[in-house]
């Protein structure tokens, strides 16, 4: 999918550390990836794997209170987002990179009308007049499939259902024609039939608008249906990345392989017993000095406890951070 050319977003060596009462927690550990124009990149991982924190770090949404964000660079639109001022970052968040959060209940302000909230970025970031912003807001609601858009602008969030509110959030993120849309578990809080509606909408919008999308989720089914390329995160690192078909057909990392097997299927064969990944995801009290997955890995051997594996390219657009080779069932050559 990704044509050769410049990446719209280029992240290199991103690190995020939280100072907590229990000590420093290394939530993101040297994450690097590129996002191509028009591509839909899926990010999969369990809670605490660092998938949301990665995305929030790179657009400065964590605030400076307890999080320390560091890295080589985050290049977007000719700027390094790690070095620009807070004002510039605000402009990027408004117009360059849109964000859709998981919970449409809490991310809309209950005391303002939907129209007001939609018009706010249009007036602030695009400098539209009130009437022009109103027209554009109605257009946006219409675009995300809300009927009777003009009238609904004066409704408050509580007058919308969960699925409708998520549509409003998407409309808001799209308001200033962003180049990149980051969607953080946008359908997790929704029912499956409503999720199906939103997935359908996103596919449609993508074809219409052609922006690049980062889609964060823990649901492999959603990823299979929507993504072009997938990154699997564990312990604040990208452990595997591949085009979507390749990842599902030829998973390399033991974590990816286990994750694919632990989810029961709704069609096809039914296992008598679910495969289990024993143990718990780690809490990273230091930056990784060994493989973060070794405590739960069934293939771990000596080298995994001594070194943290680098990402190794094993195919077109496919890389994996693991010392074990699933083809031979043996450690990879050093």
């Amino acid at each position, binding site marked *: 999918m990704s044509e050769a050319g410049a990446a719209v977003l280029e992240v290199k060596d991103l690190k995020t550390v939280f100072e907590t009462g229990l000590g420093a927690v290394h939530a993101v550990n040297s994450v690097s990836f590129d996002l191509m124009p028009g591509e839909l990149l899926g990010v999969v991982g369990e809670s605490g794997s660092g998938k949301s924190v990665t995305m929030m770090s790179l657009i400065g949404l964590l605030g400076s209170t307890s999080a320390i964000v560091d890295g080589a660079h985050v290049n977007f639109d000719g700027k390094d987002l790690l070095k620009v001022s807070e004002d510039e970052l605000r402009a990027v968040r408004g117009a360059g990179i849109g964000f859709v959060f998981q919970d449409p209940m809490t991310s809309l302000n209950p005391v303002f009308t939907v129209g007001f909230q939609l018009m706010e970025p249009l007036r602030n970031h695009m400098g539209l007049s009130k009437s022009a912003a109103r027209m554009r807001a109605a257009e946006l609601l219409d675009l995300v499939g809300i009927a009777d858009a003009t009238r609904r602008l004066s409704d408050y969030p509580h007058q919308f259902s969960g699925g409708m509110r998520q549509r409003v959030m998407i409309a808001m993120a799209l308001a200033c024609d962003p180049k990149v849309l980051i969607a953080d578990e946008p359908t997790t809080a929704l*029912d499956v*039939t409503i999720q199906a*509606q939103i997935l359908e909408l996103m596919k449609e919008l993508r074809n219409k608008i052609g922006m690049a999308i980062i889609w964060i989720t823990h649901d492999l089914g959603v990823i299979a249906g929507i993504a072009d390329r997938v990154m699997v995160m564990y312990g604040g690192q990208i452990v595997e990345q591949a085009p979507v078909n390749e990842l599902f057909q030829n998973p390399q990392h033991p974590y990816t392989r286990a994750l*694919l097997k632990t989810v029961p299927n709704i*069609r096809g064969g039914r296992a008598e017993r*679910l495969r289990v990944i024993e143990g718990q995801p780690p809490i990273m009290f230091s930056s990784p000095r060994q493989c973060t997955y070794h405590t739960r890995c069934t293939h771990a051997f000596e080298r995994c406890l001594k070194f943290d594996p680098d990402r190794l390219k094993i195919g077109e657009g496919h890389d994996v951070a693991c010392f074990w080779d699933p083809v031979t069932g043996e450690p990879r050559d050093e």
Partner: protein
Amino acid sequence: MNEAPSAPLVRVRGLKMHFPVHAGLLRRHVGDIKAVDDISLDVNESETLGLVGESGCGKSTAGRAVLRLYDITDGSITIDGTDISNIDQDKLRHLRPKMQMIFQDPQASLNPRMTVAGIVGEPLVEHMSLSKNERLDRIYELMDAVGLARSFANRYPHEFSGGQRQRIGIARALALHPKFIVCDEPIAALDVSIQAQVVNLLEDLQERFGLTYLFISHDLSMVRHIADRVAVMYLGKIVELAPRDELYATPLHPYTQALLSAVPEPDPVRESQRKHIILTGDVPSPANAPVGCNFCTRCPKAEDICRQIDPEFREVAPGHFTACHFVTDTTRKTAGSTAGNEANT
């Protein structure tokens, strides 16, 4: 596993749970939220009945009503031969050991100020007269059964991960040797890799102690894994109930068909080839259900009759029940219903 017992362990007929809506200055009764509106089901001994549906469909309310955590509006509930639909809470208390519940949110359903031993031991204190040592033995036994190390007995819930907390909740539910457990979304709050651990544990315990589950969930793939039979709820009613394989292979009700179609499959090739049924609109409010069939506002197959007459919930194939005007009946009227069926009372 599926031998036909003489009578189902749990038998629910015409269960209704309506919550009154009061409005205005005088708090007048202006209507009812029909959270559960006339459902009938049986749960056989040692089986798992899956109860699925989307949020707000009444599945949790149904589960709680079956255990009489509410005073029900109408209907009858028989558990292990005892009719519990109208008995008062005092008497009900003596029956509680037989029927237990596992809750969705292990964070909210465990008292943060009690230790694991305190939480797991509380039902023993309330319902049994054991000496301190006997009680501790039983607590350890339960902790072993759910895979918690005995050394955790004096720790507090916040020291545990979500999966471990759910194990504490399960140990508490098992304390009094229940026969019937309502599992209300027991894995919804857990991570994917932890869900499988808890589901396997529930299956092991079922086999070991001969438990009967009503497994409430919105996760259709997981229900396919764990349930023997599955009931699908929509807006307070059961729209379809069938043996698991039959329900997933040949769903008859348009809602079940749409619901199953909406579940994405972790396989990009099949996912791109599959035909999706996308429902339009949202679920109507249970305070203001449509006339006729509850699903008529979103049903792709709805016709005039659906907006006028509420379809009857009937058996259309052996053990396969549905409420839709357009499903043809293939059962022979003479055949007696087999185990676990909703023969009318």
